C-alpha cells in the first residue's frame, strides 16, 4: 500500500515499503511552466535529505531538486531525458528518481496531501 508525502520545496515521494518514487508536484510543474530539461543523478548515487540531487529546468530558469529523504538512487527515469515535457503532462505519474530509503522516520517530517494543499494555498 503506497502513500504519498510532500516537501515544502514541492517534491513528492510516493513510498511503498522502503522504496520511493520522487518527483515534483503538479503545483510545482505549473509554476515552472514548460519543462525543457531534467538534470538527474545516476543509479547508485546517494542522495541526502535537504540536499539538492539535480534540477528541473523551464525555459526561463533552473530549479534545484531537493531530496525529501536520504537514500540510494535505484533508477533515474530515462523517459524524461528525451521527453522532459512529460512532467508538464502528468507530474505525479512521471517520477524523476526511484530510491531506496535509508531512514523511514524522515517521512514523518513531510506533509500529507491535505497539509501540502494548505501549504500551496499559503504560498499563492
Amino acid at each position, binding site marked *: 500500500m503506497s502513500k504519498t508525502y510532500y516537501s515544502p520545496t514541492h517534491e513528492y515521494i510516493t513510498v511503498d515499503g522502503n522504496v520511493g518514487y520522487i518527483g515534483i508536484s503538479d503545483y510545482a510543474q505549473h509554476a515552472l*511552466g*514548460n519543462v*525543457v*530539461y531534467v538534470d538527474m543523478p545516476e543509479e547508485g548515487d546517494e542522495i541526502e535529505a535537504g540536499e539538492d540531487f539535480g534540477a528541473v529546468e523551464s*525555459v*526561463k*530558469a*533552473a530549479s534545484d531538486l531537493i531530496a525529501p529523504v536520504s537514500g540510494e538512487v535505484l533508477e533515474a527515469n530515462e523517459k524524461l531525458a528525451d521527453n*522532459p515535457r512529460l512532467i508538464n503532462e502528468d507530474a505525479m505519474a512521471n517520477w524523476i528518481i526511484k530510491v531506496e530509503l535509508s531512514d523511514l522516520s524522515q517521512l514523518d517530517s513531510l506533509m500529507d496531501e491535505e497539509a501540502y494543499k494548505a501549504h500551496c494555498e499559503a504560498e499563492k
Partner: protein
Amino acid sequence: MEDLKKTCLHERHVALGAQMSPFGGFDMPIQYKGIIEEHNAVREACGVFDVSHMGEVFVTGPQAEKFVNYIFTNDVAGLPDGGILYGMMMNHDGGVVDDLLVYKRGENNFLLVINASNIDKDVDWIKLQSASFDVTVENVSENYGELAVQGPEAESVMEEILGIHCKDLVFYTFLESEYDGQHMIVSRTGYTGEDGFEIYADHDTIVRLWDILMESGKAVPCGLGCRDTLRFEVGLPLYGDELADDITPVEACLSMFVKLDKPEFIGRDVVARQKAEGAPRKLVGLEILDRAIARHGCEVLNDKDEVIGYVTTGYRGISVDKSIAAALIATPYAVKDSELKVRVRRKTFPARVTAKKFYKKSYKK
C-alpha cells in the same frame, strides 16, 4: 527590498494572470500563457509587449548633435530627421554604460531610449558629461509608456487594428503623429529579430492601444520571458548579460556600431586600440552537445579544465531545437568549431564554438 515601480499596464497584466517578476526595478510580466507559445506567436504571427519600463531621455539645445556624438558610439552627423541609430555609451575605460537607440527628431533634437535597469545611472552619466555643452537633458521616462508590436503580422495589426499608418516606415526610422490628439512616436524597430514596431505615448494612450489589441485577439500578449529568448536566438545583446560596465564593444563584437572616423568621443581610444591589437575576450556562440542548459554565469573550460570564460545567456532554443549559449571567453579560444566545455552544476558538458546568431532575422528593410 526596494519598492518596485509599475508600468501603466500593470493592472492589465495582473488581470490577465501574468507571472510577474522584478526586472530593471519594475514589476514586469514574465509570461502570460507560456514562454514557448508567446515566442512562437512573435515568430509566426504577432505579439505585443509592454516595454513601458524602458527609459526615454530628450537631448536638445544648440550643441545637441555635437554632444550626442560625444557620448554615443555611432555617428548621428548626417542622420536624417526621422532616422534611428543603435549604439552604445562608453565610459572612459571603453566599458559599456548602456546600449541605446538614438532617434533624431530634428536639428539638435534627439530622443535616447535606454534600458530600464540603467535609467538612473545613464541620466547621471549624461548630465555629468553635458556640463561643458550647451544642451538640455530631460529624463521623460515617467511620462511615456511603450508598446512593442512584433512579428510578421505586426504591420497589418498596426494598420488594421490600431489604425496607425506605418506601412511606409523603413526599418530603423520613425514618425511622430497623434493618436486621438495625443502625441505619439512610432518606429520600425524591435528586439525580437522579426519585423515590428515600437509605439511611445502617454500612459492613457498606451493603455487604450493595449486594450484594443487585446479585444481584437490579433496580438498575443507577450512577457519578458520570450522577449529574452527571441532576442537571444538572433544574437542581440542584453545589458547585464552580454554588455556591462567592464565589457567593451569590441569584446561584445559590436564594433561596427562604433564609428572611429568621427570627432573625439568617450571611449574611442580603447576601441581603436582593441581593434588594432585585439581584445582580451570575445563574445561567441556555443552549442552545448547535450540537453543540459548552460545559463548566465556557468564557467567555460578548455581541454585542460581551466576556466577561460563564462556564459552570458543560455537557453534550450525555441525556434532552434538545441541547447545554445552566448559566452564571453578568452580570445584565443574564440575560433569557430573549437571544442570547449561548460560546467553546469556538478557536471561538465562538451560545447562547440559557433556564430552567436542562432536564428536568422526577418527584418523588413
